[in-house]
């Protein structure tokens, strides 16, 4: 059963792969370890691609002054390239990309990856809800009373004070996390099918 072997940690797979490369012989475990690395690489690459799209939204469609981390690149600014999608795409991309990054760093078991998706979904929804007018004042007061107004807390205070709650962002964050789950299942299925076919041959 492949599924029983897959959860072995990658380090063992790496050692096996190294041994195999020296001896010219790949055993069953090294193949599965190789797949784990392939899966991690695929997750990381997809996450990077998605995050790049999210950054492009900020560079091309949004006012740089509205985001502390986004530089103003005048050659790209003001293009409105993503249209109405640009309103919610970053909220979709963030949990999607970071769920994949986390999954790439986790050991190859499926369950922790889904927990990571749920966690990033919760974090994104939580931050969005914190911008709601019903909560933001309390959060700002609690944060400023507890941690003061400092270089560390100021960006968070700004995020709460100047950000606006949008239910569309909440929905996009949930969809982003779900999309990550679907992608992970798809990749697992493809790799298992591929591995099974290798075993048959």
């Amino acid at each position, binding site marked *: 059963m492949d599924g029983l072997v897959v959860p072995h940690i990658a380090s063992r797979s*790496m050692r096996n792969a190294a041994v195999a490369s020296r001896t010219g012989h790949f055993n069953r475990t090294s193949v599965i370890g190789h797949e784990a690395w392939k899966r991690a690489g695929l997750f990381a690459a997809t996450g990077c691609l998605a995050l790049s799209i999210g950054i492009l939204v900020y560079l091309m469609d949004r006012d740089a002054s509205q985001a502390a*981390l986004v530089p103003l690149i005048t050659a790209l600014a003001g293009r409105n390239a993503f249209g109405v999608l640009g309103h919610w795409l970053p909220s979709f991309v963030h949990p999607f990309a970071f769920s994949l990054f*986390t999954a790439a760093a986790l050991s190859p078991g499926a369950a922790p990856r889904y927990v990571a998706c749920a966690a990033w979904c919760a974090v994104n929804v939580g931050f969005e809800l914190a911008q709601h007018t019903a909560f933001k004042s309390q959060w700002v007061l609690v944060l400023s009373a507890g941690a003061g107004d400092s270089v560390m807390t100021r960006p968070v205070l*700004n995020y709460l004070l100047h*950000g606006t709650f949008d239910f569309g962002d909440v929905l996009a964050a949930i969809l982003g996390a779900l999309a990550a789950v679907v992608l992970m299942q798809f990749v697992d299925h493809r790799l298992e099918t591929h591995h099974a076919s290798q075993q048959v041959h």
Partner: protein
Amino acid sequence: MPRNRFIDPTLWLRGLALVGIAALGLVTIVGSGGGSLGLPSDCPPGMDCSAPPPTPAANVQPPYITALVGTPVSYSAETSNVSGAITYQWSRSTDGGATYADIPGATGKTYSLASVNLADDGAMFKVVVNGGLSALSHLAVSAIPGLVFEDGDFQATDWLVTPFAIPGASAPVHSEERVATGGNPGAFRRMVFEIAPQTIAARVFYTSLVAKYDPQTQGAIYVIDYAEDGISLQENRLTSTQSAMLLEQSGRRYIANIRDSAVGYLPTQWSAIESRSSLLAQDFNLVDGPACQPGETCPDFSAQGAPMRFGYWRISSGVQGVPIAHGIDNWKVTVWRR
């Protein structure tokens, strides 16, 4: 022999990667919103904390002066972040700043005119510091003593209070009280605002029921000097309050422009930071009432102008649900005619 998971470098690398990803994820959420403007600031008033290292600067105090014929005026060059020996050269323009002529012997930190006359009206004085930095001051001269309206006592019956509501939003909650002590000196008016839902600031107009001026009977206005002592009674740095002179005429409300002075937020000590001199009609912005029609002068300082009333306005920004307290004392409007 069982492997020790705690010394497995891959596990440590995974852990570090997860911590890094979590941190990056949180930073990108916070960094993607909130903007870089309107920061609650712990920067001292008048200092630009966002521009390291500090750049040398010069200004002339006061930047505007209105003086009566025969009285002296004095200017002082103020510098910041200028080290070493400082040289000054004062010059004067009589053509609205197009050209300047050096004033012989005027090479000190201060420059004074012993007695101004109508030929000095409209003059601009420039100081050049260390051969590079420069700053300006404007002089307005009148032959008629200014007409002064002032209040340092703030009886409630002398003032009309009008909260300003933006369309579609409710007006801010506000309260005013005369406080007998703690002013600058003596009594002062204490105001407390609460920001209304769906708004980010509370604005309230205060119109003096005593300070009235009718250009048709009292003459055309040349310039107006405005002075007030203001204070923020709020220790919370997440709130801020600004003040400006208010002028009402023909159902319209105008506030004095900040002009080329720095945006001034009331500090937590009594300050004249919101005072302005030599305000011309074009230094007032329409903020309430019907739009100005083509061919209409808004506001009208001429001898055909409608009667006007003076006052002040306050705008506070901050967090909903947090009362924003501030005070005013020594409110004074001086109307200058030619």
